């Protein structure tokens, strides 16, 4: 092939592959459903469109799957409402009237924070897609009264209090977009520190910052030890940065292309996964408690095969919460081979949480990884999670309508959870249990020790 032809071919191929990646996301992720919720809030819970409206439509369960999945997901589980409901009787006795779904109490203690819902906004890092929208995300989450995570490398890449780029918020702006909009007793912020953030003592900076101090005193700040993430367990954080940023960060991260020698638009920036043994982790957790006695300590774990031993350490060290991110978890950047081949699916992680509960481990567990609706939350709780973290749904929602989009999406999700929990004859999150769930698949039913619904 002549050179111009090769170039043309490459260009077409690159546009096609980008379009293919976008199409795959649109097809495999419930973008439309989330967009509707972000636009219309709880109005979006009913499947009416301009063509069918109430009174004219005939509706029933969709029995098809959008796509055959490679591995089992929470969508292969269903909730099993009973007709006999002693807990509904209790609630009726309390209220002196028949209870409705609006009577469900969703307030949950998540890792030392009071949350209005059993839901948190998952930690998002320095990647632009999350970072540029982060002030609206923070405001939306604060107004909804749920905890929010702040991921790795934000301060190191975008500056702690001084902007590295005029159009991008700093770490502190992102933090206070959330803290300034908290009202009432709900919420809390969970701050990660990568190996590279540790170089700059991010946590010490936060802990000694007079502006943050009142929130530390109120117990609204947690530090999260990140042990990998769903999309790339065992690999460090990855993103791309401009040459200017790359030059500044050169000493702290790994850059395959040296920004001082190679001239290109964007540079891959890798951070280290961090080396752990059980002893190192234990030492690190204790040091954290020592250094920051007034901060809560969370752990975020990727979908590792040794989750259960990790849960034991967390439980023994009285960690405030352990968040587990399944392999379907979202990411701003991850090698395709990692997305395809690394780690336990979210449902398998939930099984490990269930094992931990059976073993009597007490740590609160938060599950994440392609979870996006109220059904996912209630199913995760039924199998032992204390709460669930959403990531991508919030990014879509904020894209649709800013902070209002986040609130709308949460309103819809909240009503879903109320309906599902009340349908189980229960009115408190903590009452939802394994008896409330069944499996559409026999193997899965056996593995999870729940009924196979056709048996």
């Amino acid at each position, binding site marked *: 092939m002549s050179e111009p032809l090769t170039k043309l071919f490459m260009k077409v191929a690159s546009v096609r592959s980008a379009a293919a990646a976008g199409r795959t996301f649109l097809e495999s992720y419930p973008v439309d459903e989330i967009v509707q919720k972000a636009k219309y809030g709880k109005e979006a819970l009913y499947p009416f469109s301009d063509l069918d409206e109430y009174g004219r439509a005939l509706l029933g369960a969709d029995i098809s799957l959008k796509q055959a999945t490679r591995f089992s997901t929470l969508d292969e589980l269903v909730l099993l409402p009973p007709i006999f409901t002693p807990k509904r009787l209790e609630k009726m006795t309390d209220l002196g009237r028949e209870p409705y779904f609006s009577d469900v109490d969703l307030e949950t203690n998540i890792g030392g924070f009071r949350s209005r819902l059993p839901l948190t906004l998952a930690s998002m890092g320095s990647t632009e897609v999350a970072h540029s929208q982060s002030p609206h995300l923070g405001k939306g989450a604060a107004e909804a009264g749920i905890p929010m995570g702040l991921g790795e490398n934000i301060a190191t890449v975008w500056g702690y209090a001084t902007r590295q780029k005029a159009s991008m918020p700093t770490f502190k702006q992102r933090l206070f977009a959330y803290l300034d909009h908290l009202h009432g007793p709900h919420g809390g912020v969970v701050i990660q520190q990568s190996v590279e953030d*540790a170089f700059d*003592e991010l946590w010490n900076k936060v*802990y*000694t910052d007079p502006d943050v101090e009142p929130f530390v005193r109120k117990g609204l700040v947690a530090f999260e030890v990140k042990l990998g993430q769903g999309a790339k367990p065992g690999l460090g954080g990855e993103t791309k940065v401009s040459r200017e940023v790359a030059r500044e960060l050169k000493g702290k991260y790994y850059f395959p292309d040296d920004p001082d020698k190679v001239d290109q638009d964007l540079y891959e920036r890798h951070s280290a996964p961090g080396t752990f043994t059980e002893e190192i982790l234990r030492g690190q*957790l*204790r040091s954290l408690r*020592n*250094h920051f*006695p007034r901060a809560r300590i969370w752990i975020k774990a990727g979908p590792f095969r040794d989750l259960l031993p990790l849960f034991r350490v967390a439980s023994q*060290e009285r960690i405030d919460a352990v968040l587990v991110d399944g392999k379907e978890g979202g990411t701003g950047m991850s090698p395709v081979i990692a997305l395809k081949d690394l780690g336990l699916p979210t449902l398998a992680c939930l099984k490990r949480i269930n094992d931990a509960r059976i073993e009597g481990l007490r740590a609160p567990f938060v599950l994440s990884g392609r979870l996006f609706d109220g059904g996912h939350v209630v199913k995760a709780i039924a199998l032992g999670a204390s709460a669930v973290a959403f990531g991508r749904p919030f990014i879509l929602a904020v894209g649709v309508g800013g902070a209002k989009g986040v609130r709308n999406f949460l309103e819809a999700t909240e009503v879903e959870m109320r309906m599902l929990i009340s349908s189980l004859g229960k009115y408190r999150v903590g009452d939802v249990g394994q008896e409330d769930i069944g499996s559409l698949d026999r193997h899965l039913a056996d593995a999870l020790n729940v009924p196979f619904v056709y048996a």
Partner: protein
Amino acid sequence: MSEPDGSPPPDYLRTSYRHVRDPRMQKVLRVQAALGSAIREYLDGQGFTELLPPIIGPVADPGVRGAKQATINFYGREYKVMSSAILYKQMMAASLGKIYFFSPNVRLEPLETASTGRHLVEFVQVDIEEAGATYGDAMRRAEDLVAHVTGRARGRLGKELAAFERRLNGGAAPYERITYDDALRILADHGKEVPYGVEIPWSEEEFLSKQFHEPFFIYDYPRGSRGFYDREHQDRPGILKDFDLLYPEGYGEAISGAEREYEYAKVIARLRETGENPSKYEWYLDMLREGIPPSSGFGIGVERLTRYVCGLKAVWEARPYPKVAGVFSP
């Protein structure tokens, strides 16, 4: 000493140029100078060499509770201001054997420390290190030093101290030694539960200190509660060969010391407890890889010693230009 809040009165620190001329403050400063001489007299007599302290370097002690290190721009790269000179102590014990320096330290402490009466952002500690010594040797050394210095204070400084109406204990070595586990038990017996594995919090430390009338040691802290450089017992994994000396009567921590980890492979695993990339500690790790002798040592804060000897309410009364967390002052 029963003051629940050791915060400086508003505006007090801003006008330190005035307070240094108070006759009482002048006495404190003269006592402080005499304590410095007594420390040098003891250590020089024991064959120690006094060195000039380092002030800045690529890394400093990360094992400081909650405090942040101060960073300076060193020709485009970062240097830390010493939060403690621990790494340099090991460097110099490998050269001269028995060494010490009067080391100025800066620790940007959390704001909550402004009211403990025991924390300064800028202070001086006498840093002592001895090659070949065990932590038992270091405890005996610490005890001798404190006994010598307080003895001198009672004798030579008797007249000055009379002004503070101070009856000073601390002459009668050996001091009582209790383990970390004992300390937790004593606290638990008084209804103060401290979870195992955590350094004793400040208010509990003060309470414990009030239960004693002479200085006393707490030793064998669990791993994770102290810096990465405190050596682990070989036969008791998870327990460190380290100690604190506490002043009695609520004055609290005087000295922190330990036998040092000096083997490269152990240090690099322990360093991960800080969550950092060990590459940050390049020169130190290179030094360990090439080999240094085992050593033990400790640091004794000069302002805290002065506070104890003079019986002052708070440590910021023991420095002419005190810096307290969050307060901008001369």
